[in-house]
């Protein structure tokens, strides 16, 4: 099971629809400062149901919608679709390709889709958790967070291990 494709449209600095393809093994994401690399990591987390705006460097839903630039007006909505290759059935759902999609509007409203069908956030979270994919665990290490586990209090560090469990 792996993340095969990521489509970002209107999310943060990705005003134009952008499709990123990933293979198995190691994919490096490179480029100059401020181009949008960490925004790609944010997009993955956000599509997978991340609820903490703070962990996405924002404070409310609107902050992840493209806010305009000197050359382009702001977007009305943000949409990210993550497509997993699931032939090994790592996600216990009878699809070889699993597409999780999230859309947000400036009203603050969020919508979630699973292979095109509208679902609740809870359905996305349950599905991912059943595949041992926990956003709170060690799946995503954000920029500047590499030694966060060392700075945690012992009790909080224990929670980190339980999250992965």
């Amino acid at each position, binding site marked *: 099971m792996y993340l095969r494709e990521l489509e970002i449209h209107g999310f943060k*600095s*990705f005003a134009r629809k952008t499709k990123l393809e*990933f293979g198995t093994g*190691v994919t*490096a*994401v*490179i480029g100059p400062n401020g181009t949008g690399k960490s925004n*790609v990591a944010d997009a993955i987390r956000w599509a997978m149901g991340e609820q903490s705006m703070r962990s996405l460097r924002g404070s409310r839903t609107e902050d992840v919608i493209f806010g305009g630039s000197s050359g382009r007006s702001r977007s009305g909505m943000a949409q990210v679709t993550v497509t997993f290759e699931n032939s090994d059935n790592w996600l216990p759902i009878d699809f070889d390709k699993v597409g999780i999609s999230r859309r947000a509007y400036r009203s603050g409203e969020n919508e979630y889709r699973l292979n095109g069908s509208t679902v609740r956030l809870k359905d996305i979270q349950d599905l991912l958790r059943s595949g041992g*994919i926990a956003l709170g665990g060690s799946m995503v290490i954000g920029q500047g967070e*590499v030694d966060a586990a060392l700075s945690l209090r012992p009790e909080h560090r224990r929670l980190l291990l339980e999250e992965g469990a």
Partner: protein
Amino acid sequence: VQDEFMRTFDLIRSEFRKYFRMLFGGGDASLELTDPEDPATSGLEITAKLPGKRAQRLEALSGGERSLVSVALLFAMFSARPGPICVLDEVDAALDEANTERFRHILHDFAQRTQFIVITHNPGTIEEADSILGVSMSANGVSELVSVRMNGVDGNGAAAPVEIP
């Protein structure tokens, strides 16, 4: 549930020691319950003794050393509870050349069973990639993908990415 946690914990503990020794080329590290009498709520203490040095509190370790201890813990958690995907955003920023090499080796091994998406400026890590995505930003503040060709191998054995706009 208690036994479940203890089994996972024992596995993470031994894996942590193993990856620590691989990343530091020796030394010793341990992950312990602060209160072994009360595993249900006990916190987790980390101690690290780097090769040639004495055991040291985590705060006194250098930036690069802290990154490596954290990475050892991360890989230990992944080893005990394999996840299909891992996103790392500049976890290698503080590593010197020698430590980057060791980090690469472990990344290489893990990448057989786990997909890694690694945001990085580190040339050594980029060399480890099976594929590379380049992210650029247009003059009007919009992120876009650019293809990246590896510039062959220079005198240091380092592949140099060349952006193709």
